């Protein structure tokens, strides 16, 4: 239960704010590449600024300031002919990576992109999408780095056929077992959580101790400052950013990366467009329709009664806290280890930046950041006394059989 002042420090991201300054040291997703298929300029509402993607005189893409009214709604998406670029405004550099347009809004030269799997994979093996959550970016990130909630919020009372699991989180089997992740999460709800600082952020290990001396190991990651990398299936990982539109709204941007077959992008897009409206990528299930809550479904199928898409469960949980979570009333427990470690990282980064020591932030050294690869993100079941080696071995095997160069 921190003070309002400390809560403001870690949640506010507009120009001149402490956390905003940290986020501006990194490339931030600004739009999906598919949004450029419409006429330019394309509006971008990012970090409290009203911007637009447009072409410069040489035909290159740039992110420019657009003229706007203070009364604009947060996710205002005017058509191209209504967008007026402010020729005196700031222009930010952009870079297109794997279906996402990234922008750099900080001082000096932009940092190098790290060599994460989502950036190394062939284009055929990465699919990008985004969605709107009407809440502050930090509570959106914090649900992503908590391994304990999945056993409750995403509890499925029955398991689907893994053959129908393509593009769906938790429905696949754990590698080399017949158990689905949904079964593991349901039957072993009390993970032992370990958190380790890395050169990119945090490595989070959730151990669910099972019978017969076996342990389910799930490795997820926090990529500083506001992304996660988590397993989606035996073949795919999710790298997801929680990007502020302003202090009360954010977009999640996800890169789905396959280590085996090319991503079926049409199917993935179709699945997601059923749940989101264009051009704002606002979810169709939302507060106004109670996230599709069905009490009969809650009795027999799901913990939340809010359907089979776990993204909706997370959306309800983070939006339900209010636009900005009131941490003056928060009480963290022992399972909140990853959140506690992350806030320590963020506060240290804020302090370092205020002291003029940007090099103390993760992934700011140009030479070393390109060498940052991976990260390891998978599910495995292993003997309890050997889970670390088995998890690592499972990752090595997946990378060895990967059609693109995923070696580490």
């Amino acid at each position, binding site marked *: *239960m921190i003070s309002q002042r*400390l809560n403001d420090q870690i949640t506010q991201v507009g120009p001149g704010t402490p956390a905003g300054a940290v986020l501006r040291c990194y490339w931030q997703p600004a739009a999906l590449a598919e949004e450029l298929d419409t006429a330019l300029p394309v509006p971008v509402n990012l970090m409290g600024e009203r911007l637009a993607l447009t072409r410069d005189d040489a035909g290159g893409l740039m992110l420019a300031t657009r003229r706007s009214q203070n009364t604009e709604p947060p996710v205002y998406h005017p058509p191209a002919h209504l967008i007026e670029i402010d020729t005196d405004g700031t222009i930010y550099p952009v870079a297109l990576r794997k279906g996402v347009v990234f922008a750099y809004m900080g001082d000096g030269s932009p940092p190098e992109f790290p060599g994460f799997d989502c950036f190394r994979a062939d284009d055929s093996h990465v699919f990008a999408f985004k969605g709107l959550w009407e809440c502050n970016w930090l509570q959106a990130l914090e649900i992503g780095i908590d391994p304990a909630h999945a056993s409750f919020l995403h509890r499925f009372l029955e398991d689907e056929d893994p053959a129908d699991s393509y593009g769906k989180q938790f429905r696949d089997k754990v590698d080399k077992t017949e158990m689905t992740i949904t079964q593991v999460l349901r039957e072993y709800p009390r993970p032992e959580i370990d958190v380790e*600082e890395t050169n990119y952020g945090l490595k989070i290990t959730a151990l669910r101790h099972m019978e017969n001396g076996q342990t389910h190991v799930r490795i997820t990651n926090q990529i500083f400052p506001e992304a996660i990398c988590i397993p989606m299936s035996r073949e795919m990982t999710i790298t997801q950013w929680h990007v502020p539109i302003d202090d009360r709204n954010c977009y999640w941007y996800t890169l789905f990366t396959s280590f085996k077959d090319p991503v079926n992008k049409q199917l993935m897009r179709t699945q997601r467009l059923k749940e989101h409206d264009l051009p704002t990528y606002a979810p169709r299930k939302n507060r106004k329709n109670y996230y599709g809550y069905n009490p009969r479904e809650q009795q027999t199928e799901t913990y939340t009664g809010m359907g089979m898409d776990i993204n909706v469960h997370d959306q309800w949980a983070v939006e339900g806290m209010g636009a900005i979570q009131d941490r003056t009333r*928060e*009480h963290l427990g*022992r399972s909140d280890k990853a959140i506690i470690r992350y806030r*320590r990282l963020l506060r240290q980064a804020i302090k370092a930046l205020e002291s003029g020591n940007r090099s103390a932030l993760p992934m700011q050294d140009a030479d070393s950041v390109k060498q940052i690869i991976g990260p390891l993100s998978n599910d495995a079941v292993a003997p309890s006394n050997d889970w670390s080696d088995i998890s690592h071995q499972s990752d090595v095997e997946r990378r060895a059989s990967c059609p693109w160069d995923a070696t580490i």
Partner: protein
Amino acid sequence: MGLVAVDAVPFEDFIDGYFPLGLSLRQLLDRHGFASAWIVMRVAPMMDIPGLLADDPVPLHVDPADAGQIDWLAAAVQKREESAVYSGCANWAWNDQARVGEHTLPARIRLAEPAFIRGIGFLTGAHKSKALGAVRLARGPSDISLDLSTGDDDIHAIPGDVICDLRADPPVTRLLALDFPIGAHPQGREIGTGRETLVIRRSNDPITARIIADFNQTAAT
């Protein structure tokens, strides 16, 4: 006795918020089976609620006037009755501007969030130290040494190894507010008698390396 190798364990752990800090630290000691410990904590929100008794539950929310943040804290912790006492050095700030210039952290403070800490834990033995209770001498080589001499002799720095100068202050639970000149060892107002030196030798142990890095960060701020 001079500088002696002691039986000690580098560790990393979380301590609960919301309880009096001494109680949270006592739970840490009991969890690990330590008699005492030297800890480093960084960027930890805290609260000091007037009139809240040690046994009282934490309120549902914190009044801004009672809130603050520990920038860093390095302290020796010992068991005392059912809680723990701690003494050392720290840097902190309260929201309440009237508290600027305070040189003591009240013993009643509670962390406003659980905190991640690193430290060295000491096992019970027969050799009495000032800040760390009765410690056990190491039976073999150890990266951790204590100067168990009494008196007020100046510390003879061991180049590259000495990273903390504990100002033992028995028997009072008190923390000193110290200003750290960049690059220098902690200097502060003497309120106790005697001094004690903890020497942590640089080694390949990853936890020890992180403890040293954490403490060096505190000394630089």
